[in-house]
Each structure stands twice: as C-alpha cells, then as structure tokens.
C-alpha cells in the first residue's frame, strides 16, 4: 500500500506549512496575548476584535483579502516583489501565511488563558526583589505559562494542518507546490474513483492531529506538575 507521490508531497507540505505557521505566529501571539491579559490601554478592545476576525470571517473571505493584498499588484505584494523579489500568492509560503492568520486567534486565546492563570502578585514580588520587567517576564511569567504555550502551539499546528478555505483561495491547489492534505482530499473528492485515496488521507490527517494533541498533553502535564500558580 504505497502512497502516491502526490499524497506524499501533500503530507510533507502540510507539515512544513503548519510548522512554519506556528513558528511565525508564536512570538506575535505570545506578545499580543500578554498585552491583552496584563495591560490596560486605549484600543485594547479593538485589538482584541482584530485578532479574532479570522475566526468569524468565512475563510474564503480571508483568502480573498490575502489575495488582494499579496498578489503581485496588491499593496503588500508589490512591495515584497519590488524590494525583495518575493511572491507569496500561489506559492507554498502563501499557504503558511494563510494558515498562520487562520490559526492566530486560537493561539492567542490559549496563550491568554495561560497568562491569566499566572498570579500577577508573583510578578509584583519579583519586581520588589529588584528584577526589571523583562527579567520578570523571562523568569516568572514565561516558565509558568509554558504549558499553555505548548497547548496553544499544538492547537495552532492542528488548525494549520486543517486549514482549507483561505489556503485554496489564496494559493490555489497546485499538486507538489501548494496542495496541502485538505486540498488534496478536496481534489480527490472532485474526481470519481478516488474513494480509497480520500479515506487514506482522511485517516492520515486524523492520525497526525491525534499524535500532536497527545504529545502536547503529555508535555503540558509534565511541565505543569512542576507547580503552577497557587
């Protein structure tokens, strides 16, 4: 039961896209989650809504916006093309962008819950012991929030693995280049006689998601057993 090259490409692309998506969203998501949970500033609600927009918008609409902004004549696309010679539309990196934007709100939500579970009084103590803000974040907040960061990152990974609407709108469905597992399943469904391949891919993506979730649970529980906020 050999996998076809097309399937193998799709699986590896999906994994690659999902990893990069998490890597790129991680720091901004941590920062925004921290800011949303700790700081009170003008425009906080607006930022909160902005972050959550991809969650409520039809993915196809998000993909459409990306296309408008990032195609070679679009606002950002033209800039990237002229100055860096990069094109993201119809490129695998565009799939990363689409997946990152779609999974961003989920990651921010998970991280934010983590930050909110860290007792700010501990940060106050560290402050009184002479540590500066950055040190406090590094030595108190971050270690206590790591289980939530792992959970959020895995959630982002799983969401990226499953992203379909925005991806296919933005980078289309080119086998070997922009065809992720969901896009491949979609393509197989369009053609008669591919039932077996469809089911195989469905099972595989199911397996990858479950394994990722399991690993995150194990890591998170191992780390949180080192003690969390009292």
């Amino acid at each position, binding site marked *: 039961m050999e996998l076809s090259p097309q399937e193998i490409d799709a699986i590896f692309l999906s994994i690659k896209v999902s990893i990069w998506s998490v890597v790129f969203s991680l720091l901004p998501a941590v920062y925004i989650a921290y800011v949303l949970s700790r700081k009170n500033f003008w425009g906080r609600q607006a930022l909160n809504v902005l972050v959550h927009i991809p969650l409520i918008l039809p993915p196809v609409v998000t993909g459409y916006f990306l296309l408008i902004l990032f195609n070679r004549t679009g606002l950002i696309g033209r800039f990237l093309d002229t100055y860096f010679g990069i094109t993201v539309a119809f490129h695998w990196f565009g799939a990363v962008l689409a997946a990152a934007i779609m999974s961003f709100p989920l990651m921010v939500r998970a991280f934010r819950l983590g930050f909110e579970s860290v007792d700010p009084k501990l940060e*106050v103590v*560290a402050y*009184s*012991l*002479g*540590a500066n803000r950055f040190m406090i974040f590094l030595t108190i907040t971050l270690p*206590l929030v790591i289980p939530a960061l792992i959970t959020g990152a895995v959630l982002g990974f799983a969401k990226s693995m499953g992203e379909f609407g925005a991806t296919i709108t933005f980078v289309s469905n080119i086998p070997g280049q922009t065809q992720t597992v969901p896009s491949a399943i979609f393509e197989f469904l369009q053609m008669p006689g591919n039932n077996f391949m469809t089911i195989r891919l469905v099972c595989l993506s199911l397996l990858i998601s479950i394994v990722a979730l399991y690993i995150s649970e194990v890591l998170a529980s191992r780390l949180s057993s*080192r*003690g969390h906020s009292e």
Partner: protein
Amino acid sequence: MSINVNIDKIMGNFYLKTKFNADIGITAIFGPSGAGKSTLVNLIAGLMKPNNGYIKIFNELIFDSEQKINVSVNKRGIGFVFQDARLFPHMKVEANLKYSYRFGRRGQLGSFSEIVEVLNLEGILNRLPENLSGGEKQRVAMGRALLSNPKILILDEPLASLDEGLKSEVIPYLEFLRDNFKLPILYISHSQSEVARLSDKIIVLEKGSILEQGKTLEILSSFSVAKKLGLRDLSSFIEATVYNHAPDGITELDFEGSKLFLPKIDTPLGRKVRLRILAKDIILAIDKPQKISALNILEGEVVEIILGSGPGAIIGIKVGNHKLITRITQRSLNAMDLKLGKICFAFLKSVSVATSDIIV
C-alpha cells in the same frame, strides 16, 4: 528617622492622608480592614502613586510629587513578606532565596548561608513551595526578602493566614529578625496580640487617616482607641519581667516594683513578657485587703474616669509607667467615692490571665 512618609491619595471616595516616621525596629501599622493599610503599603512600595507628598528612606527621596521623583518598585530597596508568602511555585526554595541575587538587586545584608541558618531552612532547600507548610513558606519568604539587600522591610499581615500553632512557630523568627538585623520594619496587621507582642511603636489607621501613633502598649491600652476601633475586649497591655518559676507551678514576675503571679509560663528568667489583661478581670478596692484568693494586688492612682452612657464606667489606674484600665459600674464608683488622684488597689486573679493572652 529612617522612614519619613507624608502622602495623600484619593481613590474614588476613599481619601488616605498619612504623615509618620518610623525607625529601626518594628513599627506596627494597625487598623481594621478597610482602614487603608494595603493602600498605604502599595503607595510606599511604588505600586500606586500618591497624589501628593513625599516618601523618604534613609534621607533618600523615593517619591516626591513636587520634584517629580518616583523611583520604580525594583529600585526602592524595600523587602516584602506578604500574607500569602507568594513563593515562586516553579522554583525550589533555594532558587526562591537566590532570586534577587540572580535576577534582581544584588548586595549583602547577610550571607546566604547565614540567613539559611538563622531561618532554619537547610532541610527544605530542595523542596518546591507546594510541599511546604504555611510556616515554612513564611520563613522562606522572609529569607528571600532579607537576601534582596533591602533598606527597609514591609511585613504585610505575615501571620494572618496561619493557624495559632504555626503563628507561634513563626513569631520567634520575626523577633529574631527584629533584634538582629538593624532594619526599619513596617508591620501591617489587624491583630492586637501580634502587634502588642512584636512592635514598640504603633500607627493606628482608621478610614484613611492616622487615629493615633505612639508607644504600642500605651496606645493599645487607650480607651479612646479601643472605642473608636470598636475593639470588643477592652484590655490593658503591660510589660513585666520573669524572675522566678516557683515549685508550686506559679511564675513570678516583676511589674513596676510589684509582684505578679501567673500560672507557669515557659519563659526564661530575666526575660520581658507582655501581658494582656482584660478590663473586666480587674477588681478595685480602696483598702488593701488581707486575706483574699486573688494573688495579684497592684497599688495605683486613679488617673482617668470615663462615664459610659449606660451603668458602666471606665477607670484608668496608673501603676508606675503603665496604665491599667478596668470596667466597673457607676454604682461602685459612687460607693467607693473614686476621684482622680485617689490611691486604690487593683486585684487580678492569676488564672484570669489566660496563657493565650500572654504575648511573650
């Protein structure tokens, strides 16, 4: 004076206005909840900004509204011990203690090994905070604060969440800290007995203002303070020296030249103890009675007579430098013809000074 505070803060319809000094040793900030104790702590710590005024620590301004000085929390040099210990849960005791040295303020008040020894922490250095008892947590919190090279310490209700047994386990460490590190310590508390036992100076806060400040035992024995704070049991707080443990189970103490007899207490000879005597446990007489079962008879002068709106009266008796307050009926007052300046005798059954009131 090593701490000078003169600040105002308006928060909604709460107005805090305080002006006080504190020196080396424990100064209690005492008051009921809602009096503004936590607000005052936050203002001194730098977690809140006063509307007006200044805060000086050892003549260095850490806040001044006019000169626009507002030193940040991490540079103020204030060590904290909170009610809830607030140990870092992901760090072992040792890492908690060394936090300041590794990530914050460096410097030495005492060496690591010295402080570990003094607070008896050797055995628990490798434990996580979740595996410590309440008393152990507070000792670690004290050590951590001391190792952060503080200029002053603020202890914010450090015993409030401990039960009686744990309290008496932690108190000796607080006394050691008070007596061996030359630090000004602000001790925030709403507990009369803690404050009476540990502090020499007291600042009584009520509704954001200072009601009274001065020597702890005097202020706590003051009827007006007790009344304003609505303290239930009017008491006198006195200090006496243990001089003999008699074989019949009575401990003899010297109080202003008179003898006091108490059921046996475990305090070494020569040590001072502070006692709390409830006003209702004192009986007054004009003549010195001869055969009476009450052991403690103190001679004093009537210095205060306060008539209540009901049938009662409060009488203040000056014995040496202390004042005893007692509650009698106005009928007795008239029958005995008590007047200011009159000499009388106060009796106290030795058992009426229960051990829980002995605040060694």
